């Protein structure tokens, strides 16, 4: 009897000590394309290397808006979960009060090796609150075969060239639209609008945070977007209801010559099982406007750590973030999930060039991608931009009036 007691005591003790040295942390993750599958295999490697850390994944909705709503609920309640948060490039300023300050761990994460634009996006008031995980930039997809057929040797370098090419091709080909993009009223519309705005020589805010959107360049940029639908008729009227996936489906079914989208579409468009245009797709930077500049909106996601987690969990979380943003793992993610690395050296890796050649070819574009306004009030600013741009695109107002009203409301939001 005594022996049995001793054995069971030992058993209990060993379980207790084992449990004490084992930390469980949670992380949120997206499931666009192969993203989640790739993450699970990465986590298997991580947990083998760190047997005392257990990571459980909370899959999140694919829409950025819905993820934002969930985070608001988690963070406002002071929950310590999720420990690691996947953050959209526009969120750090807004969520900063709830995120662990990682400035002291700059060298641990080797931030000097990251694309400077992505690090800047993760910096709020001089503090680093997240580590860039993968980056995104708007780019132009085009039908190589159709451009060749009609004698266009290069993809369009200016918006005017794009209009000409689209008109020429759609006039002769049947059942095809010229150019599809994201025109629904949601965050993606801001990304698209910023690209026209900057390539026409305008911007929303200057470096000091003053509203400078009310300019002739901005009116021309918005007028051009409207004209593509109603005057040049190269974009379907329904583009005002399109998000990324609607545009991709149209392009993938061979119903469009040009498409503006993010890098994720590349792998899907070239999958012969799903896509009617596999092997016929080319990519290029978005065309330049009258200013001679071409602009791609900076997108992408980073990893932040919940401030409410215990110090033990935070340590484990840092290890996980370091692992996921390391050279090898970024390369693995880029090759298998098609998500762009944030570490500069990864772009020089020959295996990346083989799997996703455009990432390497368009490196210059990714490094220069233009950020959206960086402020804690970003959601409000985005809401105002969406409302007025969409009103102009659906002809409820003129571009001139839309820009004027936008400027007025932005000033109000920013208290100027």
């Amino acid at each position, binding site marked *: 009897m005594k022996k049995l007691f001793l054995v069971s005591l030992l058993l209990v003790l060993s379980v207790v000590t084992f449990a004490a040295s084992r930390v469980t942390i949670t992380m949120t993750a997206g499931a666009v394309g192969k993203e989640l599958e790739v993450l699970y295999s990465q986590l298997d490697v991580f947990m083998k290397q760190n047997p005392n850390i257990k990571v459980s994944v909370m899959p999140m909705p694919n829409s950025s808006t819905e993820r934002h709503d969930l985070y608001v609920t988690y963070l406002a309640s002071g929950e310590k979960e999720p420990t690691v948060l996947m953050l959209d490039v526009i969120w750090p300023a807004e969520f900063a009060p709830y995120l662990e300050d990682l400035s002291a761990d700059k060298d641990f994460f080797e931030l000097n090796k990251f694309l400077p634009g992505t690090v800047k996006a993760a910096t709020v008031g001089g503090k680093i609150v997240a580590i860039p995980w993968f980056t995104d930039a708007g780019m132009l997809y085009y039908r190589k075969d159709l451009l060749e057929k009609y004698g266009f040797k290069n993809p369009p370098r200016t918006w005017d060239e794009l209009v000409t090419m689209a008109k020429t091709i759609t006039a002769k080909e049947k059942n095809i639209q010229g150019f599809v993009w994201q025109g629904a*009223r949601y965050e993606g519309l801001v990304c698209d609008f910023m690209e026209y705005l900057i390539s026409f020589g305008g911007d929303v805010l200057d470096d000091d945070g003053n509203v400078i959107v009310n300019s002739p360049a901005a009116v021309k940029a918005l007028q051009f977007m409207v004209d593509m639908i109603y005057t040049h008729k190269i974009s379907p009227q329904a583009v005002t209801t399109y998000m990324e996936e609607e545009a991709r489906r149209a392009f993938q079914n061979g119903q469009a010559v040009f498409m503006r989208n993010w890098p994720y579409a590349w792998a899907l468009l070239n999958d012969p099982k799903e896509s009617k245009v596999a092997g016929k797709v080319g990519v290029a930077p978005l065309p330049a406007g009258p200013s001679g500049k071409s602009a791609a909106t900076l997108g992408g996601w980073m990893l932040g750590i919940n401030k409410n987690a215990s110090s033990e969990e935070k340590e484990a979380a840092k290890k996980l973030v370091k692992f996921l943003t390391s050279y090898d793992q970024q390369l693995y993610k880029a090759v298998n999930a098609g998500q762009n690395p944030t570490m500069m050296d990864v772009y020089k890796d020959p295996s990346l060039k083989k799997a996703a050649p455009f990432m390497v070819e368009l490196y210059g574009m990714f490094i220069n991608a233009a950020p959206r306004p960086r402020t804690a009030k970003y959601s409000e600013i985005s809401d105002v931009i969406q409302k007025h741009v969409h009103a102009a695109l659906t002809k*409820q107002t003129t571009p001139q009036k839309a820009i004027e009203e936008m400027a007025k409301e932005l000033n109000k939001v920013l208290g100027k």
Partner: protein
Amino acid sequence: MKVKTKETVVAWWMVLPALLVISIIAFFPLFKTFYDSFYESSLRPDIEKKFVGFQNYIELFKDDRFIAALKTTIIFTIVSVALETAFGLLIAIVVNQPFKFRGVVRVAMLIPWAIPTAISSQMWKWMFNDQGGIMTKLLESLHLIEPGVPILGLPNTALWAIIAVDVWKTTPFMALLILAGLQLVPEELYEAARIDGAGVMQRFTKITIPMLSSTIAVALIFRTLDALRVFDVVFIMTRGSVGTETLAVYNRVLLMDRAFTGPWFGYGSALSVIIFLLISIFAIIYIKSLKLKLD
């Protein structure tokens, strides 16, 4: 006498748990929302909470977006509930008649209502899609719309498309409630009326409608309350663009998108209170005009 007091005490004890639960899950949040609506506040920790009295309400009525959402919500409610009641009544009367396969029809009728709104809204969104959406194709072939017109992308069609989906989805609910009411009307009344020489229309207006009034009142209250706080179908189909934003959709913007950006929490709470008051007004109108006895 003594026994009765004892019973009352026991009764109170038995009701207490239910009362507690209701206070926690219904009265407390309601009270908290009223309380918050008098403050300027944010969920962001570095923004101070400030008492502002009725300021949030005054601002709301100066807010064009709120006025537009209020209008949309009321149009949505009146049109969709009216159509649902009319169709519901019609369907209920039909399936109340004995015919072959009545059971099958009654079950089939319930399908739209059994599908979760989030799923049916997404389904309809695809059917209204401009590329190969079946509704778009149908309306095009009937020459009701021109080819290439995005139904959900235009101010004069989007709201009607949303109303159509809501009517499709909730008519079965109305029909079911009214059918239950119809089955309570005693057959003798119709028989007596027939002997007295009342025609079909007379029997309908003098017997069916009066006998159904309390059932319809309850059904109307349910549907109107739902319609006034409609969110899912609008959010999924248009996200509130092109003039389809309802009060609840605007409230999400205030409480979620702007939770950490500025002092919008009190403002959002004030909007919640207005939705609550609006619902109460409608409920009182129904109860009074249909002389419904609640106790």
